[in-house]
């Protein structure tokens, strides 16, 4: 089956480390699942990304089990530029070019847009095929909450 959102793959700098997991307060009125990409709002809360969100805080590592009360904390993996994440796309093929396409967008919080690259935060590293036949994209996030200004 397709990925359940974003899954950590490996470090592109060759390290053998894994993402730091920590509790993070989430924004209210959303149902968040493992693998959902999150950005940060002005209150410091993690919130589900939109299609053209540019900055990535991390990936949710804990199902909220329903609608979140603002400020409740759940485990997230902090995104870093050197991490490669894999996630299914919303189509069976993509014209994106590895290394060259640097602004890939989200279709939603747990799916990469196979043909949207206007203003997103992802750089394509590699592709494969998931067992639904969709493209499995390996990406790095070039605009992370703790890596930009």
């Amino acid at each position, binding site marked *: 089956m397709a990925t359940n959102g974003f899954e950590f793959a490996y470090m592109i700098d060759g390290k053998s480390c894994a993402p*730091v997991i920590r509790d993070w307060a989430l924004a209210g009125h959303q149902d968040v699942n493992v693998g959902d990409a999150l950005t940060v709002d002005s209150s*410091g809360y993690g919130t589900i990304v939109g299609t053209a969100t540019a900055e990535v805080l991390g990936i949710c590592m804990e199902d909220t089990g329903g609608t979140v009360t603002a400020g409740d904390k759940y485990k997230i993996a902090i995104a870093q530029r050197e991490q490669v994440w894999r996630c299914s796309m919303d189509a069976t093929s993509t014209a994106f070019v590895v290394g060259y396409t640097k602004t890939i967008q989200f279709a939603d919080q747990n799916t990469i847009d196979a043909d949207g690259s206007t203003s997103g935060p992802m750089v394509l590293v590699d592709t494969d095929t998931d067992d639904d036949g969709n493209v499995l994209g390996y990406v790095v996030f070039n605009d992370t909450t703790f890596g930009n200004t």
Partner: protein
Amino acid sequence: MATRGFEFAYMLDGSNATPVIRDFILSTAAAHKVGDLMTIETDGDLTQAAAGDDEITAVCMEAVAAAAITAGTTKAKMAIVTRNQVWRCSMDAATTALVAGYTKTVDIVDCNTIDADGSGAKAILFDASGLDDDGNALAYVVFSDTTFGNT
């Protein structure tokens, strides 16, 4: 007691690395303490960071008395700052309204204290939920503008 300036906490990428230490030339004959935040000057020498400095080079790892320094000649050991490192340091107040992840312009009061209510530099707040044993906020920050990481 409060932190003595900046102390390395951990790597945000989950690795078990620690900062690289190397000698740098000091630009000023002033007392330097372990934990002082340092920035680079046009001649490549390091000086203690001040409020409003954007670019951070290192954290001093060696106490050197002012009288022991010949400006532009004397070297001291420095931990080179990179973007993946989390550093902790006391703030100048017990509370802060700065928002973790959202406030990316955290400033310092001086080279060994973070400003709890000022902004204008380029550190990103990661956590400030704890207190040091003087009762001031103990902040964890990453530096987004490092000498060996910017252009």
